[in-house]
C-alpha cells in the first residue's frame, strides 16, 4: 500500500456522522480518533482529544472499509484492461479498503513469483490492501494441482479457479482434499461446463425471444450440488463464488443445516439487474454467470438479507472499450463495477429490499469473516474505514470513472451514495469530492 | 366557413372541352386514367358522360413523388391498376386539382414506365394556378385563385362536391 495525504504518524479526528459497524449496530454522532493506523479512541474520549487533522463527517455514514472477495486487478497483464494502480484507486473510490485479487491474470497467479509480483505492485501503487487469491490448478487449466501450500505461504489468502471450471469431478475432489490438508479455503464458481456449453445468457424468456444461446439454471445448480457433496466429503472450507440462481441459495441453506463448511457470495449486479437488461442487446450486461430471472434476483436478495449468502462482491472485470464494441455474443463478459457497488446497494435499501445494516454486513463483516479478517470499528482495531454520504449523488460516465473499464452498469444517470473518505490503515486512500 | 362550388357546372365545362379536343384531334378510342383519389372520382363521372365503356385506370403516384427525400414514403400507398396496355393509346389523364404541377409530372413519369402512349390529354376539374413546373391542363373546369386562408377540398365519391374552406391560421 502506498501512502497518501495523511502519513501514518499523523492523527486524524473524524467528527459527526453515523457509525454503522458491520454487525448491525448503529450509533450517531460518534467521534473517532485515528492514530498510527489504528482507532485510538471512540466516543467522548475521541471528541475531547486533539488531533492534527479533522474530517467533518456530518450527514455521512461511517462503516468499516468494504472488503471485496472477487476483484480483477488485471496485473500482471497487457495493461489494456487495467492495472493495479488504476483498479485499486477505483476500488478505494468505491469505499473498498481490501480487495482479493483474482488469480486470473496473465500469467496466471499459480506460482510464488507471480504472487510476489502482485504484492510488489500493490506495495508500490495501491492505496488499499491487496490480498492475492492463488490459482487452484496450474494455469487455471483445471487439470493439475498448483503449489497450494507454497502459494499460501507467499501470502495467498485462498485458492480459486477464477472464472474457469475444473475438468472433472475427480480432479475437483482431489483439489479439495489437498487444500483441506493445509486448512486452505477454496473459492469456486459453480458452473457445469458441458451444460453451459456455448451459452452466454440465461436460458429463459429473453434468450427464447432474442435467439441467444442460453446457459440453463441447471448448469449452476448441478455444479453447486456436486461441489457441496465433495466439500462435505473432503471437509474442505468451500466458498461458492457468484451465485446466480435462487435454487442455489436453497441448496446452500440446506448444506449449512447439515453442518457443511461452506460460505458464498453474490455479485452486486445480480441483486439489481435481471435478464431483461439484455433486451436491447446491451453488451455491458453480457456477464458470466448471466443475469437471470426476477425470481432468481429476489431469492438472491433474500439470501443476503437472511445471511445465507455471506458476502456481496463487485466481480469487477474491467475491459478496454473494444471488448464491448461488437455484436453481443462476440463481446467479452464483465462489468466495470467496483465504483458503483455502494450506489447500487443504496438503491436496494431505498426500495426496501435490504436494510442498510444488511447491506453493510454484506460488504464488510460478511466477506471479512470468509477470509478471517477483522472488520469492526472499535478501539485498537486497524483503521480501515469508509465514510460516505448517502444523500449525495454522482453520475458515472467515461469522464468520471477511475477504472480503465468504462462499461459500468449505469452510465449517464445520477446514482445515490458518494464516498467522501476511504481510510486504509489510517491513511487516506480516497478523499475525493 | 365553407362554400360549395357547383360540381355539375364544372363537369359540363370539362365534358364540352374534352369532346371538342377529341374531335379536333380525331381521337376515337381514348382511355381514361384517374389520379388517386380525387382524380379517380372525376374520371368515373367524366367517363360515363363521354360514354367511354372501357374501364378506366387508377394511378397511385406515391412512388414517383419528388418529395421523398423530405418527407419519406406515404404509408397508405395502394397499387396502381391499369386494366389495359398503354402502348400506343390516347390517354385522358384526369385529376381533381392542379396546382404546382408536380403531381402531374409524377403521374406522367409513372405512365411512361408502363409503355409509350400515343398521346396524353390532361383534364382537371379545378386549376388553382400557383404553378412551379411548366405543365398546363388541356381542359379545366374552372380556374381559381385562392387567398392565404383559403383551401379547396373535394368530397366524394357520391355525391361529389367541392368545398371552398376558410381556415383559421
Amino acid at each position, binding site marked *: 500500500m502506498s501512502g497518501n495525504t495523511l502519513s501514518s504518524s499523523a492523527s486524524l479526528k473524524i467528527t459527526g456522522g453515523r457509525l454503522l459497524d458491520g454487525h448491525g449496530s448503529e450509533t450517531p454522532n460518534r467521534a473517532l480518533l485515528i492514530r498510527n493506523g489504528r482507532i485510538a479512541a471512540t466516543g467522548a474520549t475521541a471528541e475531547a482529544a486533539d488531533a492534527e487533522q479533522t474530517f467533518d463527517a456530518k450527514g455521512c455514514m461511517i462503516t468499516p472499509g468494504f472488503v471485496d472477495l472477487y476483484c480483477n486487478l488485471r496485473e500482471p497483464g497487457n495493461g489494456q484492461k487495467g492495472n493495479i494502480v488504476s483498479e485499486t484507486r477505483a476500488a478505494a473510490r468505491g469505499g473498498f479498503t481490501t480487495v482479493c485479487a483474482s488469480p486470473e491474470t496473465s500469467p496466471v497467479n499459480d506460482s510464488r513469483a507471480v504472487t510476489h509480483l502482485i504484492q510488489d505492485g500493490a506495495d508500490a501503487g495501491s492505496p488499499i490492501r491487496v490480498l492475492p487469491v492463488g490459482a487452484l490448478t496450474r494455469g487455471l487449466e483445471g487439470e493439475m494441482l498448483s503449489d497450494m501450500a507454497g502459494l499460501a505461504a507467499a501470502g495467498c489468502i485462498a485458492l480459486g479457479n477464477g472464472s474457469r471450471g475444473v475438468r472433472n469431478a475427480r480432479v475437483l475432489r482431489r483439489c479439495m482434499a489437498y487444500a483441506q490438508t493445509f486448512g486452505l479455503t477454496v473459492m469456486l464458481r459453480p458452473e457445469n461446463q458441458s451444460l453451459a456449453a456455448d451459452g452466454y445468457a440465461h*436460458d*429463459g*424468456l429473453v*434468450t*427464447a*425471444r*432474442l*435467439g*441467444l*444461446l*442460453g446457459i*440453463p439454471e441447471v448448469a449452476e445448480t448441478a455444479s453447486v450440488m456436486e461441489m457441496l457433496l465433495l466439500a462435505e466429503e473432503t471437509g474442505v472450507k468451500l466458498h461458492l463464488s457468484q451465485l446466480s440462481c435462487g435454487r442455489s441459495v436453497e441448496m446452500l441453506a440446506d448444506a449449512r443445516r447439515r453442518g457443511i463448511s461452506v460460505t458464498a457470495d453474490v455479485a452486486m449486479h445480480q441483486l*439489481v*439487474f*435481471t435478464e*431483461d*437488461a*439484455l*433486451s*436491447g*442487446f*446491451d453488451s*455491458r*450486461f453480457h456477464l458470466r454467470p448471466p443475469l437471470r430471472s426476477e425470481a432468481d434476483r429476489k431469492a438472491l436478495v433474500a439470501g443476503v438479507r437472511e445471511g445465507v449468502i455471506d458476502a456481496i462482491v463487485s466481480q469487477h472485470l474491467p475491459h478496454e472499450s*473494444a471488448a464491448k*464494441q*461488437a*455484436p*453481443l*455474443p*462476440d463481446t467479452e463478459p464483465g462489468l466495470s463495477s467496483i465504483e458503483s457497488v455502494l450506489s447500487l446497494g443504496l*438503491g436496494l435499501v431505498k426500495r426496501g429490499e435490504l436494510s442498510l445494516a444488511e447491506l453493510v454486513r454484506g460488504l464488510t463483516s460478511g466477506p471479512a469473516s470468509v477470509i478471517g479478517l477483522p472488520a469492526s470499528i472499535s478501539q485498537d482495531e486497524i483503521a480501515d474505514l469508509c465514510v460516505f454520504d448517502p444523500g449525495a449523488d454522482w453520475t458515472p460516465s467515461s469522464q468520471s470513472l477511475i477504472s480503465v473499464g468504462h462499461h459500468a*452498469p*449505469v*452510465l*449517464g*444517470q445520477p446514482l445515490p451514495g458518494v464516498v467522501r473518505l476511504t481510510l486504509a490503515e489510517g491513511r487516506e486512500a480516497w478523499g475525493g469530492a | 366557413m365553407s362554400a360549395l362550388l357547383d360540381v355539375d357546372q364544372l363537369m359540363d365545362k370539362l365534358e364540352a372541352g374534352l369532346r371538342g379536343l377529341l374531335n379536333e384531334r380525331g381521337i376515337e378510342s381514348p382511355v381514361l386514367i384517374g389520379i388517386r383519389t380525387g382524380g379517380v372520382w372525376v374520371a368515373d363521372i367524366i367517363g360515363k358522360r363521354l360514354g367511354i365503356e372501357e374501364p378506366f385506370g387508377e394511378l*397511385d403516384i*406515391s*412512388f*414517383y413523388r419528388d418529395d*421523398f*427525400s*423530405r*418527407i*419519406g*414514403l406515404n*404509408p*397508405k*400507398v*395502394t*397499387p*396502381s*391498376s391499369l386494366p389495359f396496355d398503354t402502348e400506343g393509346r390516347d390517354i385522358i389523364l384526369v385529376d381533381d386539382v392542379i396546382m404546382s404541377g408536380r403531381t402531374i409530372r409524377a403521374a406522367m*413519369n*409513372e405512365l*411512361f*414506365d*408502363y*409503355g409509350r402512349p400515343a398521346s396524353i390529354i390532361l383534364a382537371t376539374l379545378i386549376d388553382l394556378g400557383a404553378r412551379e413546373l411548366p405543365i398546363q391542363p388541356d381542359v379545366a373546369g374552372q380556374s381559381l385563385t385562392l387567398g392565404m386562408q383559403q383551401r379547396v377540398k373535394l368530397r366524394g365519391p357520391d355525391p361529389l362536391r367541392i368545398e371552398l374552406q376558410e381556415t383559421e391560421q
Partner: protein
Amino acid sequence: MTANAASPNHLQLTRDGQLRHFLTLDGLGRELLTDILDTADSFIEVGERSIKKVPLLRGRTVVNLFFEASTRTRSTFELAAKRLSADVLNLDINTSATSKGESLSDTLLNLEAMASDMFVVRHAQSGAPHFIAQSVTPGVAIINAGDGRHAHPTQAMLDMLTIRQHKGGFEGLKVAIVGDILHSRVARSQIRALNELGAEQIRVIAPGTLLPRDVESLGCTVEYDMARGMKDLDVVIMLRLQKERMEGALLPSEREFYRLYGLSQDKLALAHPECIVMHPGPINRGVEIESAVADGPQSVILNQVTNGIAIRMAVMSMAMGGQVAERQQKLNELSELNERGLA
C-alpha cells in the same frame, strides 16, 4: 431495476413512428406491419409492368453486407434495391477483412467512407444488426437479412404476405410451424408476426430438444404429436432441418424425424382441406417434407420470389423514407432555432 438499454423500438422507429431501421418485428405493432404488407402489394404491381422500376432510391447506394453466405436472399435484396433505382454494392465479408481479424467496428468505419445510404446485413450472431444500427452514422438505414437465431423479419413478412394472398387475412387462422424452432430466426419472426397480425392459433410442432425453453412465452402452444398438431390447420410452415442437429445429440436420425415430424400426404390430410403448405427454403425433400407434398396443389412454396422482392422493396423504401424524413425534421428544427437566435 432495468438498465438504461435502448429497446428495439427506440432504435427502429422515428419519433412519429416511421420505420428507420428494420431489425426485428418486435414492437412494430399491427398497423405498421399491415402498412408493410400493403406497401408490398403496390410493389407487386410494379413488378408486373414493362418497366419494373420506381425512382424512390435513385442516387442512393445500398450495400449488401453479408457475413454469412446466401445467394438467394442476397439476390432478392439486390433485385429489390435495383428496382428502387438504387446503386448496389455486394460485399461478402467472410471472404475478406474480418476473416483476417479486422473487428466489425473497423469494417464499418471503412465502409462509411463509401457514403452508403443503407446496409442490408446478414450475420451469424444474434444482435449484430442492432450493434451496427447503434454504431453507424446517423442517416444510414440498416435492414436485417437474418441474424443468428434472432430474427429474419423480411422472410417472415413475405410469408405473411403469402398467407394473406391465399387466406384473405389472419382472423380465425390456425397456423403451425414445424421443425427446428430452437435454431430458427425465421420461426421467431413468424411467431411474432402472426401474433401481431391476429392469427387465432399458433402452434409449434417439434420434439423437446428443438424447442427453446420458454417457447410458449413467444405466444404459441406446443404440440409434440404432429397428428394432433395438424388438426384443422389452415397454414402449415415447415422449417428446414440442418444435418448438424444429429451430431449435436438433438435428434437420433433424419429417418426418425421424417417419420414423426415430416409432412407426408397422410399428415397433410389431417388438416383443413384448403390448408396451404409453406417452407422458407431451401427444402430437404424426404426430411421435412414429402416430394409429392412439396410439388402438390396445396404447396405455395414457389410464390416466394415475387413476394420476397416486393416485401424487400417495401421495407427498404420505408426505412430510407424514415431516415430522410427524420433528417429533414432535424434540419427544420435547427433552422428554426437559428431563426430564433437560440442555436
